[in-house]
C-alpha cells in the first residue's frame, strides 16, 4: 500500500505503518466505513501518523500538495476524541453553567496553527464533513482576529475540543490569565504549512509559544505538516523541546507517491528580450495557453508585474475569457470574490503573486504558468503543486522567462525539479526583538522567575543556543529599555516582586501588549481611492473632495517615488496620481495605453543560492548549453569570444568606456539585495581610490558601476587593484560606516523597534488619524547608534541585516569564494553579458549616498526654469 517516494533524496526515511494486527486497528471501524463510503482508502502516511500518535511520539509529515496532509494531521485527534476510551475523559468533564442551562466542557484537546486565517476557516469547514458524516461528538472552532470578542471570551472559559488559530492568537491566549487552565488539557498541536512559518519571525514567535505550551501541558505532542524541504531534520527539531543543549527531533514521516510534474520552458517563437520582467514578448503564447486549458494559474513575482500582465491579457482578450487578478494589495472583498469564483470553477485564469502560494484548495487547476525567474527550486515546486491538487496526477507547468538571464534560471530550475532537489532556507536563529515581545507577553500572564523563563526559552529550537547574557539584556530592555543611562527605573514596564518574579507594572502595559502583538510589520499602507473624474492636477492637497471608490492599498514608499500626474497600474487599471490627503491616495482613471509604472518594487525573494550555483555551473559547462534556446546559445558564445564566460568559482569583472563614462560590470549571481550592498561598498572604495564613481545598478545576476575615472587605465597603472577592491575586508569598517546612514538599515531597525515593543503600532485608545507621525524611528536610530552602539535592538537589527534587506552574509560568502579568482577583461565596449544590466540604467533607481548631489539637482532645475 505504501508506495515510496520517487527520486527524492529522503526516500530512505519513509516510515511505514506498523503491522496493524499487533494491537487494535489504527483506524476504528467507523472511520474505515467512512473512508470506504467516500471511495478512499487510508494512505500510508495517514496511518503512519496514527501509529506515531499511539506511540506517543511527535511527528513531522513531509508531503506534497494534494496528499491529504491536513486530514492526516487531524486523524489522531479525531480518533482519540471519538474513541470509547474517551468516556474516561468524559467522566472528568466539567459541568458548567451557561446561564440558561448546563454545558459540558472536557477541555481543549487539539490546537491547530496556520499561517493564514483564511486557511483556518477553510479547514474548520473541511472538518465538518467527517464530523457530521460519522456523527462525531467533536466541537471545532476557529479563533482569528475577526472572531467576535464575546466568542473569544467564551472560548477561553469553555474551550472547544479543537481550536483552529494563528501564531498571533496563540501568543495572545498564552498571555492571558486563563492560559494554565486553558492549555493544561492540551494533547496535540498541529502546525500547518510549517515550512512557510519557520522562515520568518512568525516562526520565532510560534516556537516561543510552543516552549510555553510544553511547560503548561507536558504531555503535549506535535504534528508538523510541511511541503518538501531541504533539511527535514532541522524542521523536525522545531516540533519537540530541546533539552540540555542536545538536539532533539520529532520522527519524520514522508508521504510518497506523487506523480512527477511535467515542467517545460516556453519555447517562444519571438525574440527573447535582453532585460525587463514583463514577458510581454510571449503574451500571445500565454493567452493561448490559458485558452487551451480549463483553469490556469499565472504566477508572477511582484504586484506591479501582476498588474501589467493582467492589463495586457485583458486588452487582447477577444474571446472574453474569465481572467481575474489576485494580489496582496487588493481590497479584501475583491480578493474573496476572486477566490470564490475560482473555487466554483468560474474562472479560466488568475494572474497572481505569492498571495496564492499557500493554502486554500482550489478546484480544477490544470496548468500553472510561472512568469519570470523561478527564484528558488522549492518555491517553484510549491507553485507547481497548485495545479492538480490530486497526488496521483502529474502537475503541469510552463515556465516563461522574461529575459535571457531568466532562461538560464528556468533551465536549471527545471533540472532541479526533475531531481526533486530542495533549496529551502535553513532554520532561523531566533530573533531578540521577537523574544522581547514574548517576554512582555509572559509577564502579562503569570509572574515568572528569569531562571525559569530562560530554561523554558532554551527548549525552543530557534532559541536553543541563546546565551544567558542576551536573555538578560532582553529582560532589561523589556523592563526599562536596556539603556546604559539608568533613568527609566520609575517607568519600568515589568517589575520584580519580593520573590524576584517579574510581572507587568500596570494594566496599561498589558493592554499595549495586546494591541501590538505579532511580527508582521507592514510598510505604511495608504488607501487608494478612485476619483470620478480627472482632478485639476494642481497637486494641491485638501482641495479634492473625499470619498471615491476604494481600489485597495499601496505601500507609502511607492507613492513617495511618484509625482502628481504620474500614471501607474493599480487594481487592473491605468490610473493617474492626483493627490495624497492623510492616508488616502486619490487617483483618477487615466486613458493612457501605457502606464509609467515607475518601479519594479524589487521581488521580495532573491535568487536562491542553490539556483545561482547551478546557473554558474551551466555557464561554465559549454556542453550543457545544448539544452538552451538557440538565441541564448549564440549570446553566450559571443560573450566567450569577446570577453569571458564566468567559471563556477571565479568572478568576471569587465571594464569599458561608454559615452564619456567608464563602466565596471561584474557577475556575482547572488541576487539583487547582495548586489546592492556590494554596489554601496564598492562605490565607497572607488571614491577613496579617486575613481570618482557616479552610481550603480544591480539586478539578480550582475552589478554595473559607472564613474568619471578611467577604470581600465587605473587598473593598468596599478592605481586600482581589483583584488583589494573586492577584498572581504569591505565587510568591516566600510560596512559599519555605510550602515550608519543606510535607509535599508533604518527600515530594518524600524521593524525590530516595532516587534520588540519599543515603538507601539498603536497607542492605547488612540487612533492615528493624521499622517504627522509622533516620532520617527530614523531619528531614534541615529541617536541610539551614536550613544549606545551595542544596544540590544541595534544588535537585533544587525542580525536581520545579515540575511534580510542587505543580505550581508551572502555577500560575505561570495567575496570569500572569489578571493584570488578575479578575471579582469578590459574591453572597448559593452559585452553581450553586460547588456541586460546596462539596460537597467535609467529604468531602475540609481543608488548612491550623494544626497547633496540629488538635492542640488532639484535646486538646479529651478535655476534652469528661471533662466529659461
Amino acid at each position: 500500500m505504501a508506495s515510496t517516494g520517487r527520486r527524492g533524496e529522503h526516500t530512505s526515511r519513509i516510515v511505514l505503518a506498523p503491522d496493524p494486527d499487533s494491537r487494535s486497528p489504527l483506524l476504528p471501524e467507523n472511520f474505515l466505513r467512512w473512508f470506504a463510503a467516500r471511495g478512499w482508502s487510508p494512505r500510508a502516511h495517514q496511518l503512519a501518523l496514527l501509529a506515531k500518535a499511539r506511540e506517543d511520539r511527535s511527528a513531522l509529515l513531509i508531503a506534497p500538495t494534494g496528499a491529504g496532509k491536513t486530514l492526516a494531521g487531524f486523524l489522531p485527534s479525531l480518533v482519540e476524541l471519538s474513541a470509547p476510551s474517551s468516556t474516561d475523559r468524559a467522566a472528568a468533564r466539567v459541568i458548567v453553567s451557561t446561564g440558561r442551562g448546563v454545558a459540558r466542557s472536557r477541555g481543549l484537546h487539539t490546537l491547530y496553527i496556520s499561517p493564514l486565517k483564511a486557511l483556518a476557516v477553510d479547514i474548520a469547514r473541511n472538518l465538518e464533513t467527517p464530523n457530521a458524516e460519522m456523527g462525531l461528538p467533536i466541537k471545532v472552532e476557529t479563533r482569528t482576529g475577526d472572531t467576535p470578542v464575546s466568542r473569544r471570551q467564551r472560548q477561553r472559559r469553555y474551550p472547544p475540543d479543537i481550536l483552529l488559530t494563528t501564531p498571533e492568537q496563540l501568543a495572545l491566549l498564552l498571555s492571558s490569565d486563563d492560559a494554565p487552565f486553558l492549555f493544561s488539557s492540551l494533547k496535540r498541536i498541529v502546525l500547518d504549512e510549517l515550512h512557510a512559518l519557520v522562515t520568518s519571525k512568525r516562526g520565532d514567535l510560534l516556537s516561543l509559544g510552543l516552549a510555553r505550551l510544553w511547560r503548561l501541558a507536558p504531555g503535549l505532542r506535535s504534528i508538523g505538516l510541511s511541503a518538501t524541504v531541504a533539511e527535514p531534520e532541522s524542521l523536525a527539531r522545531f516540533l519537540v523541546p530541546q533539552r540540555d543543549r542536545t538536539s532533539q527531533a520529532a520522527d519524520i514521516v514522508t508521504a510518497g507517491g506523487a506523480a512527477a510534474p511535467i515542467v517545460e520552458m516556453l519555447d517562444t517563437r519571438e525574440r527573447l528580450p535582453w532585460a525587463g520582467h514583463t514577458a510581454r514578448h510571449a503574451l500571445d503564447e500565454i493567452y493561448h495557453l490559458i485558452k487551451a486549458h480549463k483553469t490556469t494559474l499565472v504566477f508572477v513575482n511582484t504586484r506591479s508585474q501582476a498588474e501589467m500582465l493582467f492589463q495586457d491579457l485583458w486588452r487582447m482578450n477577444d474571446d472574453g475569457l474569465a481572467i481575474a487578478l489576485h494580489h496582496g494589495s487588493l481590497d479584501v472583498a475583491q480578493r474573496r470574490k476572486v477566490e470564490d469564483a475560482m473555487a466554483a470553477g468560474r474562472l479560466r485564469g488568475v494572474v497572481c503573486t505569492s498571495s496564492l502560494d499557500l493554502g486554500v484548495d482550489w478546484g480544477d487547476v490544470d496548468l500553472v504558468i510561472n512568469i519570470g525567474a523561478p527564484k528558488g527550486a522549492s518555491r517553484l515546486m510549491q507553485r507547481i503543486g497548485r495545479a492538480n491538487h490530486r497526488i496521483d496526477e502529474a502537475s503541469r507547468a510552463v515556465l516563461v522567462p522574461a529575459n535571457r538571464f531568466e532562461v538560464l534560471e528556468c533551465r536549471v530550475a527545471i533540472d532541479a525539479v526533475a531531481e526533486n532537489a530542495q533549496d529551502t532556507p535553513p532554520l532561523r536563529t531566533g530573533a531578540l526583538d521577537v523574544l522581547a515581545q514574548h517576554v512582555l507577553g509572559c509577564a502579562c500572564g503569570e509572574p515568572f522567575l528569569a531562571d525559569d523563563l530562560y530554561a523554558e526559552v532554551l527548549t525552543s529550537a530557534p532559541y536553543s543556543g541563546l546565551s544567558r547574557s542576551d536573555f538578560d539584556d532582553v529582560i532589561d530592555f523589556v523592563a526599562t529599555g536596556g539603556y546604559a543611562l539608568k533613568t527609566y527605573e520609575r517607568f519600568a514596564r515589568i517589575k520584580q516582586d519580593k520573590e524576584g518574579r517579574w510581572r507587568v507594572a500596570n494594566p496599561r502595559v498589558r493592554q499595549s501588549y495586546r494591541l501590538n502583538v505579532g511580527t508582521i510589520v507592514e510598510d505604511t499602507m495608504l488607501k487608494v481611492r478612485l476619483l470620478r473624474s480627472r482632478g485639476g492636477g494642481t497637486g494641491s492637497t485638501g482641495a479634492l473632495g473625499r470619498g471615491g471608490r476604494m481600489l485597495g492599498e499601496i505601500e507609502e514608499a511607492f507613492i513617495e517615488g511618484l509625482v502628481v500626474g504620474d500614471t501607474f497600474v493599480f487594481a487592473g487599471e491605468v490610473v493617474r496620481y492626483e493627490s495624497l490627503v492623510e492616508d488616502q491616495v486619490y487617483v483618477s482613471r487615466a486613458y493612457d495605453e501605457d502606464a509609467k509604472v515607475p518601479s519594479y518594487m524589487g521581488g521580495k525573494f532573491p535568487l536562491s543560492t542553490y539556483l545561482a550555483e547551478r546557473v554558474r555551473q551551466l555557464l561554465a559547462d559549454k556542453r550543457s548549453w545544448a539544452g538552451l534556446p538557440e538565441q541564448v546559445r549564440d549570446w553566450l558564445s559571443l560573450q566567450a569570444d569577446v570577453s569571458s564566460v564566468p567559471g563556477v568559482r571565479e568572478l568576471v569583472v569587465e571594464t569599458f568606456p561608454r559615452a564619456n563614462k567608464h563602466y565596471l560590470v561584474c557577475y556575482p549571481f547572488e541576487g539583487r539585495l547582495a548586489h546592492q550592498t556590494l554596489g554601496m561598498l564598492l562605490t565607497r572604495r572607488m571614491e577613496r581610490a579617486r575613481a570618482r564613481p557616479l552610481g550603480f545598478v544591480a539586478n539578480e545576476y550582475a552589478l554595473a558601476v559607472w564613474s568619471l575615472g578611467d577604470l581600465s587605465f587605473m587598473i593598468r597603472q596599478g592605481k586600482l587593484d581589483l583584488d583589494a577592491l573586492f577584498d572581504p575586508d569591505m565587510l568591516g569598517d566600510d560596512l559599519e560606516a555605510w550602515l550608519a546612514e543606510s535607509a535599508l538599515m533604518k527600515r530594518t531597525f524600524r521593524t525590530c523597534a516595532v516587534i520588540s515593543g519599543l515603538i507601539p503600532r498603536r497607542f492605547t485608545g488612540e487612533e492615528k488619524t493624521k499622517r504627522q507621525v509622533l516620532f520617527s524611528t530614523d531619528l531614534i536610530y541615529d541617536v541610539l547608534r551614536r550613544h549606545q552602539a551595542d544596544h540590544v535592538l541595534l544588535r537585533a537589527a544587525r542580525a536581520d541585516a545579515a540575511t534580510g534587506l542587505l543580505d550581508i552574509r551572502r555577500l560575505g560568502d561570495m567575496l570569500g569564494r572569489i578571493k584570488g579568482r578575479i578575471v579582469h577583461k578590459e574591453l572597448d565596449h559593452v559585452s553581450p553579458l553586460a547588456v541586460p544590466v546596462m539596460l537597467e540604467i535609467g529604468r531602475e533607481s540609481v543608488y548612491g549616498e550623494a544626497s547633496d548631489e540629488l538635492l542640488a539637482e532639484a535646486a538646479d532645475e529651478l535655476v534652469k526654469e528661471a533662466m529659461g
Partner: protein
Amino acid sequence: MTAGAQSLDGREISAGHGVTVAGITLLADLSGAFFWESERLLIVSDLHLEKGSSYATRGVLLPPYDTVATLARLTAVIARHDPQTVIALGDSFHDPKAHERLAPADREAVAALQARREWIWIAGNHDPALPRDIGGVVASEAAVGGIVFRHEPTGAAGEIAGHLHPKARVTTRGRTLERRCFASDGTRAVMPAFGAYTGGLNIRDPAFQKIFQTPGFMAHVLGDNRMHAIAAARCY
C-alpha cells in the same frame, strides 16, 4: 567659519546660506538655526527637550539620549557664532513637566550656554509656562528690528515662527529624500525643529498654505553638508 560644528547626523559641517525675510538677510545654518549676524542673534526652534522621557512616562521607552544630543548640537552652533542673544522659539521643552526631568548635567549645560549672553524663551504650546530657575527670560513673543518672533505662525508679514516642523520631500531620479527645511516666501519664515527626536510636517500640508497663501514659497533644505533652496512646488 570655525570648525567643530555638527550637522544633524554628526558630521563636520561648515555651511549655511542666506535667507531674506522682510528685507533682513539671516544665515540659515545647516544645523537648523537662524543667525542674524548684525544683531548677533541666534534663533532655534522646537528643541523639544526631554521628549524621550516624556514618552517614557507613558510606557514608550525611547532612548534617553535626545536631550544630550540636542544640547550638544546647540552648544556647537553657539560656539561657532558666539551670539549675544539666543531666542528659543517655543516648544523648547516637550511637556510642562519636562524641565523637572532634566538631568543635572543637562541643566548645567543649559546654564553654561546662558552664561554671558541674553537668553529668551518664547512660550510654546508644549511649554506654556516655564519656571524662573531655568534661567533667561520668558516671553510670548519678541520683536527685533522689524521682525517678530513667535512660536505659532500667524502668516503676518515680518514673522519668524516655528511650531510646524517643516520638512521637504524631494524626488529626483527615482530616489526620495526627506529632510528638515526652513520655509520662506521672503516676507515670513517657518523654522525647522531643532530637537533630536522631532519629526516633521510636509511643507505641502495645508497648514503651510494658510501661512504662505501662495504656492511660490521656498524650502531651504538641510542637506548633509550644505543647504539647498528648492521651490516648495517642486517638493511632494
